[in-house]
């Protein structure tokens, strides 16, 4: 069973629908028994970092996620879930889970590409260039596009964590991985076939 972590951060049903569509069973949950009994954990989320961290702490999920990570359970972070896996976010100046070294930064207000001022949030389809191989991103060619919606981006302290890079005025890590943890800034559940492929690779992944 795949546990989709419910910490009141946005709508989790689209992740569950995509996972079900791929033929895997999943449960939207914040129950310790479910989470520790699951084979895989998906940690999604939409919203703001500060509120998300408060909710996680209130539900005891911060410690639980740490524990699951140490127990070598495969974990997939998505969007806000990815951001709060790092140590700190500029959004709400929030201290985060710290499973990965690094922080989350806001896109600069004045962001340009080819002389055009870019809008924030970064919303829509953008490329991901893979910088190293990883089983969860296997058989996905370079420069397919994925759906993004965000105003903040992760900046790992260790260059070696980056798996995929995306450019929006600046280049940032749109996919990172360490041991049993993978995390993407885009929404695989809203990224058509390439996104479904990532979800299915993850659900079959045995790190």
């Amino acid at each position, binding site marked *: 069973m795949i546990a989709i972590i419910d910490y009141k951060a*946005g709508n989790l049903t689209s992740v569950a629908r995509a996972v079900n569509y791929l033929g895997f069973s999943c449960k939207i949950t914040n129950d310790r028994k479910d989470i520790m009994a699951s084979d895989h954990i998906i940690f999604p989320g939409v919203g703001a970092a500060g509120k998300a961290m408060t909710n996680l702490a209130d539900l005891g999920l911060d410690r639980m996620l740490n524990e699951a990570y140490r127990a070598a359970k495969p974990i997939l972070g998505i969007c806000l879930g990815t951001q709060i896996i790092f140590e700190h976010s500029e959004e709400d100046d929030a201290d985060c889970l710290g499973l990965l070294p690094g922080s989350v930064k806001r896109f600069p207000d004045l962001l340009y590409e080819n002389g055009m001022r870019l809008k924030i*949030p970064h*919303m*829509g*389809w953008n490329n991901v260039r893979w910088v190293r191989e990883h089983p969860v991103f296997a058989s996905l060619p370079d420069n397919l596009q994925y759906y993004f919606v965000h105003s903040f981006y992760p900046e790992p302290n260790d260059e070696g964590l980056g798996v995929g890079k995306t*450019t929006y005025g600046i280049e940032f890590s749109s996919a990172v991985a360490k041991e049993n943890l993978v995390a993407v800034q885009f929404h695989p559940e809203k*990224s058509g076939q390439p996104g479904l492929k990532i979800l299915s690779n993850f659900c079959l992944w045995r790190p």
Partner: protein
Amino acid sequence: MLSKRIIPCLDVRDGKTTKGIKFKDNVDIGDPVAMARFYYEEGADELVFYDITASSEHRPIMIDVVRRVAEEIFIPFSVGGGIRSVDDMREVLLAGAEKVSVNSAAVKNPGLINEGAKAFGNQCIVLGMDVKKVEKSAKISSGYEIVIQGGRTYMGIDALWWAKEAENLGAGEICLNSIDADGTQEGYELNLTRMISEAVGIPVIASGGAGHPEHLYQVLKIGKADAALIASMTHYGTYKMREIKEYLNKRDIQIRMTW
């Protein structure tokens, strides 16, 4: 680099798509779920559903459509039409839509944008604007006025002011429909689109007037829109999604070409 989005718009009444659509034989032309699936496979970057059901008693039918669409397609889609409260928004989002679009309800009650953005995040709230060109005046200094009821009622609100106001209130995106261009298939309202797009820091979807891929080129390039809404030009089979995308791609517009 971020791609420009091509977004087919489907009108739904009492759970059925209303425009006769010349699809392949195996697609039920009246079934919004089958049509959503078709456009998903054709490479649409996003979809817009507009509920034109007159009576609110039929609302559960639309929610059921949203739920079934969400089970079949894995790209973002928004739902508009008849959304008057945060509860209406919640219902549509929980059924699986990525975004909700508010139009006349937000004109009458601008606080709705703010309440929705606070409850679900700015990225969920699309402001739909219906706009008509008018004589410039002290009140309507941009020369574009907000209208409702399909253009029958002028609201005395300047479109440029309203776009900026909606951004301040927390709208994450604007879907800008020119009532003058709508249905003509003679091209988008480029001046209007450019004016609004340059004035706000949120994405603008241009709507109304698409009849040829060149029109999309113009509105994305000259009009500086972030996305283009289309309806008739693909609904009636005149153009395929891929044809439109290839046309734009050849003319150096950044487009998602593989899906």
